[in-house]
């Protein structure tokens, strides 16, 4: 649903892998009229795809009947995407930022998703609200 004054778009989908494609389409359709660069749009779509994949896998453990809420706000200088889930939370501070060259030489796994999102976006904020719901905020500066 579009709120033209605030340029806010919202989508609520079930936590199935099939919906990830719908989420990508929603982001593309919401951003396209704003005239931001294709590169910025592609980065936002890939970051949201990663975030949504993480919700399906890690917050909901592939349970298909849960909710994923996506809110996209187009502001004058940024695009802010908030992904809300009601599943398991994680502590981003426990996941080190990998140096990829080094990461490829190490045996440990994990941290790839956050690395990818931080590479693609200008800001990544994750907050868990008393174990009731979690919000991941992805911010991309735009020049449009």
């Amino acid at each position, binding site marked *: 649903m579009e709120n033209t004054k605030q340029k806010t778009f919202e989508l609520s989908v079930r936590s199935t892998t099939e919906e*990830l494609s719908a989420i990508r389409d929603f982001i593309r359709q919401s951003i396209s009229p704003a005239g931001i660069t294709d590169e910025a749009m592609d980065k936002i779509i*890939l970051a949201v*795809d990663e975030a949504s994949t993480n919700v399906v896998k890690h917050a909901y453990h592939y349970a298909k009947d849960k909710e994923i809420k996506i809110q996209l706000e187009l502001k004058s200088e940024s695009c802010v995407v908030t992904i809300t889930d009601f599943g398991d939370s994680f502590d981003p501070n426990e996941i080190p930022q990998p140096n990829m060259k080094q990461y490829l*030489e190490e045996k440990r796994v994990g941290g790839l998703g956050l690395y990818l999102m931080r590479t693609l976006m200008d800001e990544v904020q994750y907050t868990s609200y008393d174990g009731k719901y979690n919000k991941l905020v992805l911010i991309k500066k735009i020049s449009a």
Partner: protein
Amino acid sequence: MTIHESKENNVYVVSLTGRLDIMNCEPVEQKFAEVIDTKNEMQLLVDCSQLTFVSSAGLRLFIIALKKLNLKGGKMAFCALDSGTMKIFTISGYDKLFKIYDSRETALANF
């Protein structure tokens, strides 16, 4: 997702056809595990000429395969990416981590 495999000049070539996202990355993940862990192949070329889309889940399994081969002293490369797939590699910065060649022939010549 269709997977074809062949071996050319000691290089194991896995060709991917279709879309690679979370819904169909499992067979590719299994194929990489079979090639790297079971067959113990040390040189892997992923032919992307028929690959039409890669999501973040696809990028993840590529990185994991590269990491496994790195740890064993092996090599992994990609060839014939279309512009859409190349864009995903570029914006994620993964183009700097992987060896990417224009064609299968060039890739095979450079292993």
